[in-house]
């Protein structure tokens, strides 16, 4: 018994540090290419910050997506919610700095409502999460297109501080993302709600039998995910000065955020993984982009390789598991 646990331990460890290994590999390739091409200006701290800054929207979305995937659910409506929140916030603000707070509140309320609806569909009506959130995505898209056919309104300069402002030489948006990650880590690691998420994701029936209110845990995870997507929409509105109805779908934030979370070692069926893997996944994604830019690979070839890399990265640690997946 004792021997068995001892023998099994290294494999378990390997799985734990797989995202770190992948991240190390990506950093190594990046540095090697930059050095071999003599482009040392891409290795300065400023360059590092700009690489990280490029994936703030994806990072914020992925933090939320981590919660839904950990609880054994999934959210495909984030991309359309991002578009909706960018459009709604810029339409409400309409260049007026006084409307900033109402707009932010309205967008966050919208996010909470969407999250609640997703959660209700999944828990109360027992709809498969993929279908529930896909249906929600179509509904949001339709509402957005019919209410804001012509999107006008823009974000006041003061609001652009979110995307372009700097504190102590670090971009505000990056600090917000870092705080969000820290908060998510604390919630998942140290609170009862966090451990409930893992139990419900691991086995919903067992969790219910153990006295956990599974409905509430799933609902809360979906609300967190939608709030994060709304925040990502606010960030994009602030960066681009106005929201457009295709901003979220164009970035493919729904599928990219899922890919990032899964590359970070969180298992799609839930209950295993964590926020730091997601962070590693986000950084890997932006490093891949930077590597392709440095190497001067054509945009379409980039896309082909990106698809292969997503699958290869997930296969990297999925291949050792004995589980049958579908």
């Amino acid at each position, binding site marked *: 018994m004792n021997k068995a646990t001892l023998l099994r331990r290294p494999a378990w460890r390997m799985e734990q540090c797989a995202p770190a290994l992948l991240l190390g590999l990506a950093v190594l390739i990046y540095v090697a290419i930059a050095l071999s091409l003599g482009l040392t200006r891409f290795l300065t701290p400023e360059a590092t910050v700009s690489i990280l800054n490029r994936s703030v929207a994806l990072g914020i979305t992925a933090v939320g997506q981590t919660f839904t995937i950990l609880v054994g659910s999934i959210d495909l409506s984030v991309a359309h919610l991002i578009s909706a929140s960018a459009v709604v916030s810029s339409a409400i603000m309409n260049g007026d700095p006084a409307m900033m707070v109402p707009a932010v509140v309205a967008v966050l309320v919208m996010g909470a409502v969407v999250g609640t609806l997703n959660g209700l*569909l999944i828990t109360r*009506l*027992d*709809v*498969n999460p*993929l*279908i*529930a959130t*896909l*249906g*929600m*995505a*179509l*509904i949001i*898209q*339709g*509402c*957005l*297109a*019919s209410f804001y*056919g012509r999107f006008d309104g823009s974000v006041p300069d003061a609001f652009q501080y979110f995307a372009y402002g700097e504190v102590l030489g670090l971009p505000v948006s990056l600090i917000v993302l870092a705080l969000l990650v820290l908060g998510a880590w604390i919630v998942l690691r140290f609170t009862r709600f966090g451990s409930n998420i893992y139990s419900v994701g691991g086995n919903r029936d067992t969790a219910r039998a153990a006295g956990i209110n599974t409905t509430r845990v799933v609902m809360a995870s979906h609300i967190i995910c939608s709030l994060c997507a709304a925040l990502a929409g606010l960030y994009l509105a602030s960066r681009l000065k106005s929201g457009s109805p295709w901003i979220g779908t164009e970035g493919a934030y729904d*599928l990219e955020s*899922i*890919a990032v979370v*899964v590359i970070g070692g969180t298992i*799609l*069926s839930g209950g295993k993984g964590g926020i730091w893997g997601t962070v590693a996944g986000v950084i890997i994604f932006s490093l891949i982009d930077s590597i392709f830019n440095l190497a001067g690979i*054509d*945009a*379409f*070839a*980039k*896309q*082909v*390789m*990106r*698809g*292969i890399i*997503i*699958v290869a990265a*997930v*296969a990297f640690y*999925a*291949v050792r*598991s004995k*589980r*049958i*997946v*579908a």
Partner: protein
Amino acid sequence: MIQETVGSAKTRGVASIGRLPKINPVFFVLAALLVAITFSNPNFIEPTGYMNFLKRAAPLAILAAGQIYVIVSGGFDLSAGSLITLTVVGSSMLLDNSADATWWVIAVMYAVGLAVGVVNGLVVSYLRVPSLIATLGMMITLNGAAFMWSSGSPRGYLPETFRFFGRASIQGIPLIQFLPVALLVLLVVGFILFWLMHRTNLGRMLHALGDNPRAAQMSGVPIERVRIIAFVASSLSAVTAGILLGGFAGVSTDVGVGYELQAITACVIGGAQLLGGRGSVPASIAGALTLTAIFTLLNFIGLPKPTRDVVQGLILIAAVVLATYRRNRAGGT
């Protein structure tokens, strides 16, 4: 005790006999929709009306009939839409405006489809990547490949010989006047897929695999091979749908966008159970026709595209809620 067992077996037998003639509700919904379309547009009863409707629905119906294989086996195939795009763009690049190459190009496209299906199946079976991620990666890759092949702007057009399948009709048939080739293709493909799914051992193994992979493996189902066949069926149906779509739509890099989700929606409307174990080919085809009928009806009523999205979303959710409700009431899981 024995008495009880016999009794319960008997009631179960009666129940299953009672359930046998139960027709999938999707067929009633489809019939109701067709009646509604006829009321809003009386021309629909004319052969040109309903034949054009069936012709337009054929690619989605074929795609759904292939997708149901993967859904029954417990997975998803998100790469179908991008494979349609690749088929259309690739054929136009290979044909290079010459009509003689048609058959050869179609063979190449089916070979590409076969390869895509096999790779999807291998990645899911042996690398143990969940099909959602594996086929998502394939989707991104194939879209990139279509862009790369055409350098972003596909040139040329598809010659008449290639467009024959999507466009042409066989004239002079009694009773229905004409039969679109696309519908003929749908009937043939639909029958083959129906037969494989519901009349052969392969179909039973697919259902067993989707229902409980571990149990299927222990009772001797070659789960890897069966899963690969499911993905191949989906990919080949996507190539077929691509060839038909190349017939009516022009060549562009977004012909296939959104088709994978519509096909999954069609299967769900047809009562398929996501994550495997339950699904039928005719019901999925009926689901695809239902979806197309809904869009046609909304078009006749004059609702704009955004409203169609909302309606598709509501229908998708409603179909699943209804299926879950029926299943719970029937006592199954």
